[in-house]
């Protein structure tokens, strides 16, 4: 979609880079001089999608702003694993305040910069789905309606992972968490609950809303670059695999995120001023089972017996997304 087309090069634009590519066409992640906004030694779990997503997004934002960037971080995994005081993994100006107020802090930083006349320094607010979808929603909605000059990034791992995998407003139906156990006739998280924050953001008619996953690096980077080229309130929602909370293999973090999009369960799109303007088409359509099977949080759909009814229900959600966003 928003990424540049690249001449046929064996892996085309699917891989992070390629020895044959013009260095200008490398992804930020493939750049040997990338800023590594979050550096090694952080305490994220093996195969953490959020650590990866945060580095992708912030490195791309750092490049887009020439390193003139400040981040405000909500409480959550990202904050906890990156900054057990006095160690920090952040190699950029970074600020943590509370669980629920990251959008407000980011708005404040933007306001201060405006007052100082520093239009060159840009602001990112970021948090997990708990801090964004649930606890920080009021602050975020305020940031949107005032059209504050902030890019807010939500790293969505679909539950409160840091505190022990409790359900959030972003937990998908049928998923097992500590608070939605796989017991009873309708095991896991109930259907018909939760909220879709990209659509809530679009309802504010802010300049830019987009979704992305850690499985499509170039798409993610292109969206960050695009967002940093705009002013006003912008929202980026990134699906990040959580091997701990999803009970998926650490090495399959990218594979799982890829299947989330290839099944249609997680639509990847862009919206300008509240209208969907572009979607990432599904390259090889897969049934939802292939995505669900890789994750222990859905094991009760396959064992002790196959829950055909629940699987059909989840497939219907994917089919609806495909039709709604035109993913094929």
């Amino acid at each position, binding site marked *: 979609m928003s990424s540049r087309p690249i001449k*046929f*090069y*064996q*892996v*085309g634009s*699917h*891989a*992070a*880079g*390629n*020895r*044959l590519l013009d260095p200008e066409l*490398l*992804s930020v*992640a*493939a750049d*040997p001089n990338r800023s*590594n906004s*979050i*550096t*090694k*030694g*952080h*305490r*994220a779990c*093996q*195969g*953490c*999608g959020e*650590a*990866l997503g945060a*580095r992708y997004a912030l490195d791309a934002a750092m490049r887009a702003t020439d390193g003139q960037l400040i981040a405000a971080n909500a409480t959550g995994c990202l904050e906890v694993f*990156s900054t057990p*005081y*006095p*160690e*920090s*993994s952040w190699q950029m100006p970074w600020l943590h305040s509370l669980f629920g107020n990251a959008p407000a802090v980011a708005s404040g930083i933007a306001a201060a910069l405006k007052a100082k006349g520093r239009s060159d320094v840009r602001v990112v607010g970021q948090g997990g789905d708990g801090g964004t979808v649930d606890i920080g929603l009021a602050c975020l909605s305020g940031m949107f309606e005032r059209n504050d000059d902030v890019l807010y990034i939500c790293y969505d791992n679909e539950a409160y992972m840091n505190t022990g995998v409790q359900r959030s407003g972003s937990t998908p139906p049928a998923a097992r968490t500590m608070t939605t156990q796989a017991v009873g006739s309708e095991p896991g998280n109930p259907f018909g609950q939760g909220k879709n924050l990209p659509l809530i953001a679009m309802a504010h008619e802010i300049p830019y809303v987009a979704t992305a996953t850690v499985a499509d*690096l170039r798409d993610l980077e292109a969206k960050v670059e695009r967002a940093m080229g705009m002013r006003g309130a912008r929202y980026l929602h990134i699906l990040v695999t959580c*091997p701990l909370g999803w009970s998926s*293999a*650490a*090495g*399959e*973090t*990218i*594979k799982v995120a*890829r299947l989330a999009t290839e099944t249609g369960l997680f639509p990847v799109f862009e919206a300008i001023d509240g209208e969907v303007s572009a979607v990432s088409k599904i390259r090889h359509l897969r049934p939802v089972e292939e995505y669900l099977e890789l994750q222990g949080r859905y094991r009760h759909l396959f064992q002790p017996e196959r829950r055909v009814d629940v699987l059909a229900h989840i497939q219907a959600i994917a089919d609806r997304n495909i039709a709604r966003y035109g993913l094929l």
Partner: protein
Amino acid sequence: MDKPFAITLDVGSSLANKTGAWRDERPVYVERMPPCNEGCPAGENIQQWLYHAEGGDYEAAWRQIMLDNPLPAVMGRVCYHPCTAVCNRAQLDEAVGINSVERFLGDEAIEHRWKPEVTAERSGRRVLVVGAGPSGLSAAYHLTRLGHEVEIHDAGPLAGGMMRFGIPAYRLPRDVLDAEIQRILDLGVSLHCSSNVTDILQTMTEGDFDAAFLAVGAHIARRAYIPAGEAAHILDAVSMLRGVASGEKPLLGRRVVVYGGGNTAMDAARTAKRLGASDAIVVYRRNRERMPAHDFEVQEALEEGVVMKWLSTIRQAGDGAVVLERMELDDTGFPQPTGELEELDADSVVLALGQEADLSLLDGVPGLEIEDGVVKVAPNMMTGHPGIFAGGDMVPAERTVTVGVGHGKKAARNIDAWLRGRELASAARHEPADFELLNTWYYSDAPKTVAPRLDAIRRQSSFAEVQLGLDEQNALFEARRCLSCGSCFECDNCYGLCPDNAVVKLSAGDRYEIDYDYCKGCGICATECPCGAIAMEPEPS
């Protein structure tokens, strides 16, 4: 207390936290054997030369081929490309057109007059090569490059063997063949044509040779007994093709029946069409599935109007006609006669029933063993007589140019070792790079660039080359379709996709390194490596 307000501890970096200690498995960069290399009878490192071609460095690609095979332009035309048959890309869309790229590189080399280099010191040893076919030429080339003095003797008037006197010009234009042979001779190989070696030991003694490589080929047509009338016009395919290659025009008549189902039968039938036959009919006792001829040759023959009579044998040949008997395959796939006869008009019958080697030059050589009409050789290509090696069609193997070239190389290396009194160390073989080890998501969707072919009508009447080559752009595209199975091609995935920044990107060509101080062993790099060049191994305790 010179710390800022409310700060009591020094701010540290997470670099102090060596997360490598968490690991129970570690990623390791590996090389695996790609199926194309495994499948190449000439032992080419196909993946490596495609790697150079992908970058547009055609000369480096050509030089890589030349390490194993001195005849890329020939091979790019006549090889039956077993590499393509096993190419992993075939399971994705279509196999890489390796053969077409090789031909492009071979033609580039001829056009730009690239030359191989001889850097080895002169050994002072002399090696006799008997036969200037693919195997003999290959051996001569490799022996020269290893520092030995080589003399080739060939019974024919020109070098090339079956490449010149067996393969029709529409598959291998003679200027291409000449250019590649000349390039070998230019290295200092001395060639003696029309020199029939009749006693190998005598020739070796007279010429003061330290070793010999025999590659006399298989030029004698196998005959089958067919009751024939006096007026029946029967000839064999080998002589016919040799005659045509030498400029003769054999009298075949308008209706030509070719008996046999191999590649030579296809060559004979297609040549007959080109010589003006209105009908060329191939009679074969089994069906198409069981035909030894390669599929594309059968396909091209059919396109040119050659007619196939499956499940038939010739019972009798008479004046202007042959009698065919219909056959049936039994449970084991062997053809059995049915007794049903039919007559088929035929002005001539061409027998293409296989070839045998003329091994009379070996009479009386002590230790040398001949079995089923071919010479027995050890794994190092040496016959039972020390110092005499043999290869190509005269030893037990599939009879193709590619196998011959491979034998030549293998024999040359072993002759070199033998002359120097050394054992030839066999290179360690890597684990196979199976399709399941690849992550094909990352490769661009790109079907094969099909080399254009001469229109069927033009083909039937001329000996112009049927398969045309790829142009530069197509060849580059085709080379870039290579998946580089089992060998890192620097796509940056491991570096880009590591959540712990534990992969170090080195300078171009040097690939990457794992920083085991921080690598947590999650395995994302191994899963997301497109070509299966990273393995997860248990952490050493």
